[in-house]
């Protein structure tokens, strides 16, 4: 097929499916912890990191990773120590970081176009370094998730009992949120800061409706995410549509079908 003759498309498929698998499996935990807005908030923070990276001539990838990680630790700290609702903490971070990013962008208009790529994602922007970083971080995430799967599940299901049984819930909460921020900051370049949240959350929500246990939910979520990315990249290539948005619209279609299907059965 013609589409596979372009190395940038091959890279997009490779990077896209890896991100889909990791983002959706992490997303499963985020959703059941009722922390769905986390990915959106972190994506905007990582956008701020990118803007600051451009401004200070640091590598935008690294500065966005650093910003997102630190912000995620602050969010988790506030969640554990304050009586504030998690979703209000998140919306403060979301709008705050976006506001700062806008100010930085308007103060120095030279990098507007490249920042635009980070907002909406761009498959042509993937280079070999990105592939290496994504594979490496993907491997780290996969191993961490595999090793701690039961513990993360216990904390999501019943944090108090998990803690009472001697599990280090504080550490594991920080670990999980760190994984989420790493995945988000490496994927915004491809999927886009505005869309990565959908990629994490929607597959999980669809999968949850069709499975009676957590293991199957994660499997389904990963499959749904990967199918959407692959189909979305095909469609965006042949119809000349932006890839990130196409993927999210596909996910929304799956979601709508799943809701209709689910409602009809009762």
């Amino acid at each position, binding site marked *: 097929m013609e589409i596979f003759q372009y190395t940038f498309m091959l890279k997009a498929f490779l990077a896209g499916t890896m991100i889909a698998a990791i983002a959706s499996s992490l997303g499963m935990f985020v959703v059941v912890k009722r922390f769905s807005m986390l990915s959106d908030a972190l994506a905007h923070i990582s956008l701020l990191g990118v803007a600051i990276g451009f401004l200070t001539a640091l590598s935008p990838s690294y500065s966005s990773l650093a910003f997102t990680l630190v912000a995620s630790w602050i969010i988790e700290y506030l969640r554990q120590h304050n009586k504030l609702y998690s979703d209000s903490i998140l919306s403060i971070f979301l709008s705050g970081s976006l506001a700062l990013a806008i100010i930085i962008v308007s103060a120095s208009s030279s990098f507007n176009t490249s920042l635009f790529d980070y907002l909406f994602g761009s498959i042509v922007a993937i280079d070999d370094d990105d592939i290496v970083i994504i594979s490496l971080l993907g491997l780290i995430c996969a191993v961490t998730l595999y090793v701690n799967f039961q513990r993360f599940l216990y904390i999501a*299901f019943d944090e108090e009992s998990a803690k009472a049984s001697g599990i280090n819930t504080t550490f594991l909460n920080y670990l999980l949120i760190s994984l989420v921020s790493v995945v988000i900051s490496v994927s915004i370049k491809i999927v886009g800061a505005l869309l990565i949240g959908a990629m994490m959350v929607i597959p999980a929500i669809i999968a949850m409706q069709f499975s*009676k246990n957590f293991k199957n939910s994660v499997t389904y979520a990963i499959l749904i995410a990967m199918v959407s990315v692959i189909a979305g990249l095909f469609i965006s290539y042949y119809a000349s549509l932006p890839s990130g948005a196409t993927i999210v619209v596909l996910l929304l279609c799956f979601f709508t079908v799943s809701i209709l299907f689910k409602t009809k059965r009762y």
Partner: protein
Amino acid sequence: MLLKNFKDNVIETKNLDFKTIIQDVSFEIRRGDYAAIIGPNGGGKSTLVKLILGLIPHDNGVIKLFGQAPSLGSLKKIGYVSQGIAKLDENFPISVHEVIKLGLIANKSLFSRITKNDLARIDHVLTKMNIQDLKDAKISELSGGQRQRVMIAKALVNQPQILILDEPNTGVDKQSQINFYALLKDLNHNENITILFITHDLGVIVDDINKVLCINQTLLACHDPRQIYHSEQLNQLYGVDAHMVCHHH
């Protein structure tokens, strides 16, 4: 050698303080005890249990588990069913089998996986709690009484020496409660599991238990259960002219 009448303290507190909620509470639970904690709403019962489990740090006083300062090792020997587990997240996609499996993680090292022996243990508690048929069901599809049994199964699967239950029978019908009490009695008698049971309803279990702790901010009394039945202290405990909560058949 362990003498027949010698019973060690498995839970012990001395002059325990937490803010104004728990003040100067000292008591002992011995191995094999079946103790009830009673007291009014907001009296600090759940808080006391959380202090014992180290879920919240205490301000003053001493807590000892199995004769020693609480540690990860001692927590692993305790099964805990927290209050309000009945109001689970209705959408959480987790099966009965998966919930019970969570009870085993505390004893797992980082890379060890679920073994055949673990699966056998899960089957054993499923049978014991009479929920074999539900093992693949989604937890949110179960009734309140069934969920309660799953949570107890999760607490039992790790073969704990102490079982701490915080009002596990809120919203459970009479017959299920009676079955549940029979089970607790069996665990206490035949498997020598120490039980600490928070309840508002002493009526049915008063003949099974051997200790009652009345908590309202401080420990008001530590009783033989048959004495408390008509005790003056009950009035003091509930502040009003309370009569013992009894079953109305």
